[in-house]
């Protein structure tokens, strides 16, 4: 790549974007993790730090930026962010925590499992086996509160989105959309192929940290029966 990374550019008058790569791969993911760690939690003039697949958006309050002379907040903040990220390429992010998500891949909880099997030329059983065997990483949270964009889907499971998105996908639905897999945290419209459902609440505004998953977490799906699913729901 010819562009020097990280590249810091303005993103409107209250944010800037740090570009750390141009593709979804492990090296880029590591750089994003390292940069997130450097930027830390929101504090002072920085009001939020949001990871993308290959970038980080830094939201800030211009009034709180300490400026030298007549310079404007975006200039001063870009300098602060550049110094925070100095040498970030050399750091290696610590592995994230491992979160196990129970998933029932049966019957009405998996309305598109047969479609995924048909598309991939595998048995439903093999689809479930491959999906639950992999370890995924959370690249991004977005779309709706707590929705994880997971990297690590076995390429053989890639299946196009549904031609007609559903107007309402139940909370907890586990889906495949193209080369990605994820879990719908709240009931919402959605076009992914639904192959199972978890009884866990991926988003709960009453929790101090409402999203179950955070960028950098590792995720495993554990197969549970319908009986176990119902027992977990009842709990």
């Amino acid at each position, binding site marked *: 790549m010819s562009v020097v990374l990280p590249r810091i550019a303005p993103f409107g*008058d209250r944010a800037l974007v740090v570009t750390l790569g141009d593709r979804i791969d492990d090296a880029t993911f590591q750089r994003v993790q390292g940069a997130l760690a450097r930027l830390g939690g929101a504090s002072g003039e920085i009001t939020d730090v949001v990871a993308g697949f290959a*970038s980080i958006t830094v939201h800030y309050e211009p009034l709180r930026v300490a400026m030298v002379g007549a310079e404007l907040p975006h200039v001063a903040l870009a300098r602060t962010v550049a110094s925070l990220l100095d040498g970030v390429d050399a750091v290696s992010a610590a592995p994230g925590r491992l979160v196990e998500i129970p998933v029932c891949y049966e019957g009405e909880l998996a309305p598109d499992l047969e479609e995924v099997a048909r598309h991939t030329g595998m048995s439903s059983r093999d689809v479930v086996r491959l999906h639950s065997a992999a370890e995924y990483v959370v690249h*991004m949270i977005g779309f709706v*509160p707590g929705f994880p964009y997971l990297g690590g889907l076995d390429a053989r499971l890639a299946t196009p989105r549904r031609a007609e998105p559903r107007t309402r996908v139940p909370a907890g639905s586990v889906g495949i959309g193209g080369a990605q897999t994820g879990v719908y*945290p709240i009931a919402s419209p959605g076009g992914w192929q639904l192959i199972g459902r978890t009884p866990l609440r991926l988003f709960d505004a009453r929790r101090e940290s409402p999203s179950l998953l955070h960028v950098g977490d590792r995720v495993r799906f554990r197969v549970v029966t319908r009986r176990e699913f119902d027992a977990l729901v009842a709990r």
Partner: protein
Amino acid sequence: MNVEVLRAGALTTIQDLGRLGHQREGVPEAGAMDAHAARLANLLVGNLESAALLEATLLGPALRFAGATTVALGGADFGATLDGEALAPWRAVAVSAGATLELGAARDGCRAYIAIAGGIEVPAVLGSRSTYLPAAIGGLDGRALRRGDVLQASVPGESRARRSLPVAQRPVYDGNVRLVPSEMLAALGDAARATLLGEEFRVSPDSDRMGCRLTGPRLGGAAVPELLSSGATMGTVQLPPGGAPIVLMADHQTTGGYPVLGHVATVDLGKVAQLRPGDPIRFTGISLDDAQRLYLERERAIAALRRALSFPP
């Protein structure tokens, strides 16, 4: 003090200045669409600028106050009346026990703010009282107001009535919106830039708190490379595959993958919030430097107003 909702209006929600610091968890900031108007209305009744207030949309609510208080309207003029007497925006007025405040249809914008002294008391969710409808959080049980709801407002210490906002500080609502162009817009070529910054668009009826969708000329231009999703902000102007731009607003998704044409200057976000379906909108370019200068200038004006009204920040 109780406030009874006699009529809910088209879409009336409890809002404040948003849920900050949770976008990393995919939680939109939400908050008042026209945050500037909300802040000014709150200042007029002696509230903190971040106090919870009501946001009415196109057709306003009717409210009955069980006790005496002070209210101020901000934002668009909804032809409001207080016990039958006309009540203009940008003035704090004393409300006596049993009085009825009625808002009609929006006359010159889309959204009105009803600030009640002491602020509306609902539990804060993730640090904010803003209603975010898609996840049903904040405000009154995460939903819009309904007829028969009873809101609680705290009782103010002293009356702030008879304050009005100097005319020079009142926002002007029109469709002339300044935009900081992105590098992507430059990459799309001169024709795309000339279309976005030269032609008139109109606000589509399917616009909402998530985004202001535009109809009119389509933006083509050079092929847009496939983009990886990344964080977005209120005011980000996206170009979906159909070629009709969207201005992301208060409830926008925290991340997006569409090409970004630019960003509406923060000082003009209130104008976008006040556009109604069918209204014209025209973008002119502004440099980032100038957009931030205007932002700082406006914040200084609000700080001066805060001091003039002698309330702590």
